[in-house]
């Protein structure tokens, strides 16, 4: 079996080229690959396109916002691009207001489904979400069974950074509760999937085949979070 276990986060993100599209899961802090993000911050790749629910800086720990603030991101594709509150001006919002970073705003369900489509080899799909709004402007419309839909396209990543609960040596992953969020579709949509794991990686065969959320065929590199890693 191919060895997918890397000894450090730095090693796991080595060689990630400038200009890559990187997918970052996480929702409310759970399932957010903070250690890999910190490693990418140290690694210094630039001109990245980030795919994420939001542009980060939601707490005082490392998140996508760290990469934004460091100027490593050229564009964010996410479901939140404005300050959630006028007083809450993140580095992203500041840079976005100054046209120093690009952004594409996508409804959250469409964002998730576009990644699922990329992973599932679907060339495009019709959704009723966003019809009649500013975000549907310029998109191809089609009435299906009396209801208007817009055409949406698959969203591929070069890399997905994943945060899992358990993993085995083959790369099979399990998530715990709402930690799962975007992790599954991002692992499917990206060419290279790198995982930080909250528990020791077990031998193949120790996880129940029925309870695996991401099959190991989607996983390329894994690192167990060490005691001095970033936990939550």
């Amino acid at each position, binding site marked *: 079996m191919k060895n997918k276990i890397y000894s450090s986060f730095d090693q796991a993100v080595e060689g990630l080229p400038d200009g890559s599209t990187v997918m970052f899961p996480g929702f409310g802090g759970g399932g957010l690959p903070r250690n890999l993000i910190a490693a990418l911050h140290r690694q210094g790749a630039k001109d990245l396109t980030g795919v994420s629910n939001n542009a980060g800086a939601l707490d005082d720990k490392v998140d996508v916002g760290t990469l934004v603030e460091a100027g490593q991101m050229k564009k964010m594709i996410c*479901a939140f691009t*404005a300050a959630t509150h006028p007083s809450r001006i993140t580095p992203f919002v500041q840079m976005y207001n100054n046209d120093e970073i690009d952004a594409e705003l996508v409804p959250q369900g469409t964002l998730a489904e576009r990644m699922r489509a990329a992973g599932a080899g679907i060339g495009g799909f019709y959704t009723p979400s966003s019809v009649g709004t500013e975000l549907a402007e310029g998109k191809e419309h089609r009435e299906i069974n009396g209801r208007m839909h817009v055409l949406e396209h698959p969203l591929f990543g070069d890399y997905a950074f994943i945060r899992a*609960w358990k993993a085995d040596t083959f790369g099979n992953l399990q998530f715990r509760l709402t930690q799962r969020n975007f992790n599954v579709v991002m692992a499917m949509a990206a060419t290279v999937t790198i995982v930080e794991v909250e528990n020791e990686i077990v031998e193949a065969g120790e996880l129940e085949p029925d309870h695996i959320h991401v099959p190991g065929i989607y996983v390329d590199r894994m690192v167990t979070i060490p005691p001095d890693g970033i936990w939550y």
Partner: protein
Amino acid sequence: MAEKPKLERQAMCDRLAMEFQDEWIVNLGVGMPTLCSNYVDPSRDIITHSENGVIGYGPLAEEGKEDGHLVNAGGQFVTAQPGMSILHHADSFAVIRGGMVDVTVMGAYEVAGNGDFANWRIPSRKGGGIGGAMDLAACAKRVFIAMEHNTREGGPKLLNRCTLPITAPGVVKLLATDLGLFEITPEGFVLREHAPGWNPEEIQELTEAKLIIPPDLKEFRFRA
């Protein structure tokens, strides 16, 4: 008149929650609507759904008892409840787009008499915050809104037509503000219940859209 007491946010959310029916799958938006979860009639058999992939979660976690792996769509720590299940994000929105959600309760900047509402973008600010609101608004069976009746500056929020970019067209069915409960019908806003001490004329004065005042207008119902 500015001194006259208006409804509390909790009362507004309680009132919307009273409309929830047995077996309804309920999605509560970030902010004020999550207050709805503080009051759900215990005789009602409500199923919670949060777009980050959890079905059947329980009340907010007590301080010190939070589980870092269990949050709602607002990022608040919630509790597990028997029968709870987890989906990934795409499957969670499959539930939403598939029409399984009976009601979504959201906040808004503006609501119009044609059922349009706006809650994601202020033109003076660049970008916006959509989250799952467009998916929910387009696909839930019912959209309920909880919001203040007027802007901080006293401007109207119940409008003939929205001035801000809308979240979805023609979907709002029921609206609770701090002045009353409003149904949106093909004819426009119907004032169903008025806040105590407020008469329809006073409410109309603070409203851009023409309100329909039905013969059976009632006083606002509070939690028993």
